[in-house]
């Protein structure tokens, strides 16, 4: 029953193909996308269950043996991420149904979303660096088109920037792969992990590690490579931004989590300080960028950078506790961020703007929106009893235990600044006297539903945090346990 591993890729891809064949009306395409993402979520839940009970699952595509053929592998982290992506995909499809116009829904929106999901799931499941490159490109092509659909001037500029940076990243990725192949003679992750420690050319391997760090950092929007993100994420429909923030940057983070503990754990003296430096600077740059923004979407885009910093901090600390905390934080953060973007969409629907200065007074007219904003905002800032509190606390505690006082200090300070930023948004949007009294309805149920679901999820993950932490801890254990992964992927002949 290992064939189930291919389903998270196959379902969205097949649905996208069928979707393009359907008549271009909103109804059938929407129904198909809903069905596909729901099926994806169900399959992913099943996969997670299997991996939890039976350990790392491996599928050798076409029956070719591991280092030569294409291999798909799912450990707990992969399975968790596939499940998270499926859930977010489903919520985004529901949200699209509420927030997009019929004309947009009838177009290529849903097929593109599905293709992107296929690329994302493929990246999570592949056990081979070159296939990771191919899945990256699949996901990127879909995201380019999603960004450029019906583009007017502002969006064209954003898309050009995003595409240029992505293509640069792809070129760097290929060079890193070339170096790794020259050093290790293989691009299968498990095979490379066995060969790299005995390499005769450690400098080349280090160069490849740094290039990979740059490439994945670019995708993840970590500090020195982050400035494309706020320059492009504020332009598309809000559901697309939510999808990008939930999936695309996380694939970069995932690639870092996958490759660095596995391939470069032999050289922590160089990679760890670099990653920690990137993490700390991402937190600071993101949050300081967000402080001065008055455009709600740009503000949230900068926030993405600072939150990615937290995830990288967990990777940089590289202890089991830190990795576990980062994974838990990851789940919480994807929920919180998507929820905030979703609510932003509803706010824009009500006020007709995403500039903070032009909003105001919504706490009286739309108390439900206020509540739906407050939950993810407080969760993101790390207030109890929401999911963010426990995740952030675990991360800070791991940093303290590893005696990285600087990281812990910056993490705490950035948490406070995040709270300040969200209070600023709250004051501007909900409390200030409104500049104009143009108040529309709160938006259809399909828009508010996903917000409600995510808010409940955050409360649930806050009050019942234990299962998530048990799961993350096991996932972190698997990340650090290189031998099991290598053995599972390469099969019995090692």
């Amino acid at each position, binding site marked *: 029953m290992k064939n189930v591993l291919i389903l998270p890729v196959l379902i969205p891809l097949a649905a996208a193909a069928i979707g393009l064949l359907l008549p271009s009306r909103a109804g059938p395409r929407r129904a198909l996308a809903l069905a596909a993402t729901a099926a994806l979520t169900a399959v992913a839940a099943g996969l997670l269950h299997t991996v939890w009970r039976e350990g790392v699952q491996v599928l050798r595509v076409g029956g070719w043996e591991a280092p030569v053929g294409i291999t798909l592998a799912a450990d707990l982290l992969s399975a968790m991420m596939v499940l998270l992506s499926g859930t977010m995909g489903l919520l985004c499809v529901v949200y699209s149904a509420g927030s997009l116009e019929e004309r947009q829904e009838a177009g290529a929106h849903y097929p593109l979303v599905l293709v992107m999901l296929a690329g994302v799931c493929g990246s999570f499941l592949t056990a081979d660096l*070159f296939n990771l490159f191919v899945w990256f*490109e699949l996901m990127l092509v879909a995201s380019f088109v999603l960004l450029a659909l019906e583009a007017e001037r502002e969006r064209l500029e954003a898309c050009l920037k995003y595409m240029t940076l992505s293509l640069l990243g792809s070129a760097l990725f290929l060079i890193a792969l070339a170096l790794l192949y020259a050093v290790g003679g293989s691009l299968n992750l498990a095979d490379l992990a066995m060969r790299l420690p005995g390499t005769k050319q450690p400098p080349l391997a280090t160069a490849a590690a740094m290039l990979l760090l740059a490439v994945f950092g670019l995708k993840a929007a970590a500090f020195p490579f982050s400035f494309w993100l706020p320059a492009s994420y504020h332009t598309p429909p809000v559901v697309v931004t939510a999808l990008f923030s939930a999936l695309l940057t996380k694939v970069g983070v995932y690639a870092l989590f996958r490759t660095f503990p596995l391939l470069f754990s032999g050289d922590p003296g160089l990679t760890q300080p670099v990653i920690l430096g990137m993490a700390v600077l991402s937190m600071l740059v993101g949050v300081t960028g967000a402080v001065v923004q008055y455009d709600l979407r740009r503000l949230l885009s900068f926030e993405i950078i600072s939150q990615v910093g937290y995830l990288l901090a967990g990777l940089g600390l590289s202890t089991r506790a830190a990795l576990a905390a980062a994974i838990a934080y990851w789940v919480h953060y994807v929920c919180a961020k998507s929820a905030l973007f979703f609510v932003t969409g509803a706010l824009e629907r009500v006020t007709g703007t995403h500039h903070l200065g032009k909003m105001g007074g919504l706490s009286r007219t739309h108390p439900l929106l206020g509540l739906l904003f407050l939950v993810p905002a407080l969760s993101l800032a790390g207030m109890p009893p929401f999911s963010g509190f426990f995740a952030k606390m675990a991360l800070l505690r791991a940093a303290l235990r590893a005696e990285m006082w600087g990281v812990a200090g910056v993490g705490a300070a950035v948490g406070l600044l995040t709270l300040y930023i969200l209070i600023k948004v709250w004051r501007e949007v909900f409390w200030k006297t409104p500049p104009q009294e143009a108040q529309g309805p709160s938006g259809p149920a399909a828009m508010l539903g996903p917000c409600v679901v995510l808010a409940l999820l955050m409360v649930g993950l806050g009050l019942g945090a234990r299962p998530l932490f048990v799961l993350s801890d096991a996932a972190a254990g698997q990340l650090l346990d290189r031998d099991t992964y290598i053995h599972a992927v390469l099969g019995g002949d090692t």
Partner: protein
Amino acid sequence: METGLILVVGMLYAAAIYSMLRRSTVRLALGLVLLGSATNLALFTTNKVTRSLPPLLPKGGAPVGPLADPVPQSFILTAIVINFGMLALLLVLVHLAERTVGSDEMKHLNTEVPPPSAPGE
């Protein structure tokens, strides 16, 4: 042979970066094309460039001489195809930008700094 290829790769990168830094969307696209080619060539060069047989074995027999490594070549093949697809998309985008703005100048497209009279959107 390898030295020559390395020099070509270097020159291609230089040319790519030069044209990407010009403030014109068409040149940006050209630069990205060159970048893709340079990368493919670099990928080709990291696997030693030597005279060797195609990686095919005679039926049931042992290899006659040194065999070429087929893996990097399949990588390059895939990369070329992907690069080509991306290029097509990029050219469409550049065309779209030019039609919208009426020139291929980046600065006409620049919306990053809003005019001071209209803050916000």
